[in-house]
């Protein structure tokens, strides 16, 4: 059986999450870690959108082709999309914050190596 689009997308999303995690766990460069996190963020978003997808239906927008009456049988689940919008924006906020931190950390230590910021421990 051929995998559906949703399953394909979901699998890709999961793989992206894992790739992102791997990068975040193994790259010692702060900026590269942040890049890795944006990848896993994208992966999460893909999974969420894929879960709401229903084959043969249209986007949850009412227009000439989809009127209010038959929306129930014509559109896909709008909730995951709404959630993803929020998630994307929050992701950007966190990314910006991490970047600012990285910038400042570099300014202090002239290094982006995460292993150099370990004075706090034990």
């Amino acid at each position: 059986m051929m995998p559906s689009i949703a399953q394909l997308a979901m699998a890709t999303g999961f793989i992206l999450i894992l790739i992102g995690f791997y990068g975040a766990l193994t790259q010692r460069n702060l900026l590269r870690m942040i890049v890795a996190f944006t990848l896993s963020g994208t992966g999460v978003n893909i999974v969420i959108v894929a879960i709401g997808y229903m084959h043969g239906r249209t986007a949850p927008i009412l227009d000439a082709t989809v009127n209010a009456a038959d929306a129930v049988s014509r559109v896909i689940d709008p909730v995951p999309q709404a959630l993803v919008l929020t998630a994307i924006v929050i992701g950007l906020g966190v990314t910006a914050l991490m970047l600012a931190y990285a910038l400042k950390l570099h300014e202090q230590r002239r290094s982006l190596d995460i292993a150099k910021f370990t004075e706090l421990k034990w």
Partner: protein
Amino acid sequence: MVSPLYLIVLALAAAFLLGLLNPERRGRAYAVTLVALAGMTLISADWLWAFTMEGIDPVDVYTAGAEPPFAINLRMGLAEAALTLLVNLTGLLSALYLKDVLLAGGRRTMAVLLISVMALVGIILTRDLFNLFVFFELVVISSAGLVLLANDKDGGPASGLSLSAGFKYLIVSQFISAFLLLGIIFAYHATGTLNIDGMANASLGLATGGTIAFFLMFMAIVAELKPFPANGWALDIYESAHPAFSAIFSAATGAAALYAVDKLLLIGGAEWLPIATGIGIVTFIAANLFALPQTHDRRLLGYSSIAQTGLVLVVLGQRDLLGDSTPFIAFGLLISHAVAKAGLFWLSGLLKNRQLADWAALRQRPLLVFAFVTFTAMLTGLPPFPGFYAKWELVHQLAGAGQFTLLGLILLGALIEAGYLFRWFGYLMKREAPVETVPCTGHKVGPVLVAVAAGWALAYLWGDLAGGLFGRDNLLLALPLLFALSFLLLDWLPAWIKNSLAIAGMVAFFLLTWGEYDPLRLIFAIIFLIGGALTLLASYSVHGRRIGFYPAAMLMYAGMVMLIRATTSFDFFAAWELLTVGSYFLILRGKHSEPHALSYILFSLGGAFLILAGFALAAAGAPQFDLASLAQVAAPAAPWVFVLLAVGFMTKTAAIGLHIWLPGAHAEAETDVSPMVSGILLKAGLYGMMVLLLAMGKQQLYGVELTHVLLWIAALTALIGNLMAVFQEDAKRLLAYSSIGQMGYALFGLALMNHLGWLMALVFVINHYIYKSMLFLAVGGVAKRTGTREMYKMGGLIRLMPLSFIAVLIGIIAVSGVPPLSGFGGRWVFYNAIMSAEYRLPMVVLFMAGPIAFLYLFRLIYTIFLGQLKDELRRVKEAPFWIVLPQMIYVALLLVFAVVPGLALRHVDAYLNQFFPEGGLHWGGGTIISDYGYWNPVAIMIIVGVIFTTVFALLLIVNRKAQMVKQFNIVFSAERPFRPETTHYAWNFYAPYRKAMGFLTQPFVTRFWDTLADLLHTAGDLGRRLYDGNGQSYGFHFLAFVVIVFFVGGI
């Protein structure tokens, strides 16, 4: 009441409004911030009032004009009201505390603080999963921002440390958010709703993928509780952040996250409860263990926060078992933790240096020391604070359900926590203070004082609640406790006024209540109250204000009085803890008593926990029971109850193996404190033993009769205690070891479980009080005048301190049990008693202990008072009047008691007939008749007096030509003094005996406990190296945590 939505609206509106203000008018922005936070606090308080006082039902608030699950809804109930109040109040107080920092940081910083508080409120109120996620992200981001708040004024802008801590937090939260989002969306897919209650109804676990979806969400939210091992980031934050933020992070964030977990558990249902428990208990133990080797104050507080949160998680996980009392317990623990931790973090901001020992600077301000004590007591769950009630309930319910492993682990963790907290308090009181002045600015001290007030108010509230639930009186209203606490308010008075008040109070209380006691309790009441008042006479010798002495002493006496007045297990235990704490503070007052006080409180608390466990086991699920019904405990549990209680009480009587705290604690205590903690305090343990033995009698465990075991312990205690005393050079230590031996005798009598044995024990109780108080006072007085307690530095003091000499002479005659004094009475009853029992071998051991006592007692008088006077002591005067006076009263008492022992014993003897009808004594006129012989005290007194005079006269005649030897005439003995000690004839007096019996005095027990402590320390030190400070490692930890829970939890 206004809609709870205004909590969120108010904060957001204020935060946005700040952006419109002139950036330079910072004062105005600060005012807006405070007003918003105060408004939020008021709204929460208003709701809390409505729920508690008016009893309204929880309110659901819909948004967007649609019903859930189609729109987000919030709920305001009792729990929400209380938690939001906690969050808002913490936020408000921290904002006050941060005044300087916020004014320097400007409106953006204030906005971040406002939003942080708002987000925590949101977490508590929302009933929508995704909304929960949004609020969590807000918390994460605002926390990452607040970490950066400048640490202190002179430290300049935030150090690089807090920057890296914030970054680590962001790394971990990226992992967490990914899991949370995935979990939420799959849960949504499985149930078709995002509403928490809707999802709970839809039984998520049954849907496909529902279990894993829930697992992911659960792991993500639990990770916000900083579970072991995924919590390194949190510690770094605690260590580097501004303390006012740490207060929010520990108290408010912790509370909100716990409530989120609680909501989530609604969805997951019963099968997730054991997992929550597991995570909680592992975290509780690990965090406490890792805290042991900490020296950095804020990091230590961080570990403690994590541990406390873990404990509350355990409670949530045991929800099914705890039933209706879950909120009572969970809130009791949580709120104690929150108030105390916030207070301690605020306190830490007043100090410049970050080592634990640097807290000694706090001694400048007794009020702040009191705050520290309050917080420590709240954290360790001492009465009368909420944590105490919670601990009692929790342990009882767990024991009732047979959850012994969990129970043991909880008590172990709590003991470790008490260990490092009391160690810290010891540093605070005893270490050298760094040169710094502790600032006393209102906006910084204010929040601390509010926390203290909140702590006491909560203590009252919980007492009230417990009263309602279980039909108890409010502990905080117990008259003796109130009396003790009132000395806190009177501490500004001079010592002599407080002393008079204390004595008057104790005597008055005795006069008011003496009719209420049965003869057994009356004896203890007399010792505790009248005896206590008598020892307090010696305290007149101290001048000044003596800050902290009277609250501590009165707390101890209050505890002891409450102990004998207690009729239920709860009251008994509460009293036990009060007297323990009070005596700890007293002991800690000694100059070098820091380590000894610590080991005292640890042994005592360990013993108290055993008692608690014993009571819980006996209660079999009931919240408490009448002490008398200990007798009805059924078979399988009964011997265990007996063992737990007996060992618990024996920590206080310092039975062998549990005795190592005593010598130091008694010897290092102040002059007038030693008699209190020796002569009086030890009796509390005996009283406990008596209550236990009267109710439970002989118990058998695996075919071994437990009273027989007790006999052996008692005999060995007597032997080893006496032996150790023999080899002491320090007079007070000698007396302390002698107390161990004496308690052995008393315990032996009790363990005989017959009439005479008990009579003997009671004789010992009275005698030991009198002569040990007297000896400690006498020796203390000598030490005070000579400036040393080493006996070889004294000698020949008989002429300079004749009254002390008489006291010691009478004392040792009494102790050694030779005729004619009351000690002999004790011995006589005792020999009669063991004749009547069938245990020969321990008896032999006990007999051996007798002559050994002679050895050390002889030395006491010989070394100190006889022989040559040292040059430097030629100007020594008699001890102060107020120290001698009680001694003379004791001398009189001893004589009276020796002549008419029946005065007290008669009634006790009659009383004991109820329990041990056989083998009683017969009282005929001045003579006492037993089955084996008779004793006529007056006749003996006369005979001994005649013999003594005769011998003395003979000696005088024979030794007429005796010649005085000059002090430094030791060259005659062909010995060259190469050490100062060796110039004294009595140094190492019993060296030959040491060769013969020294093996018995090897510090095996000390070594055992030391090794145990070292082991714990090492384990903690190794364990904490897990947190290597690398943000990436923390990511690993989180993923490992998820994987481990997945496999261990069997999901």
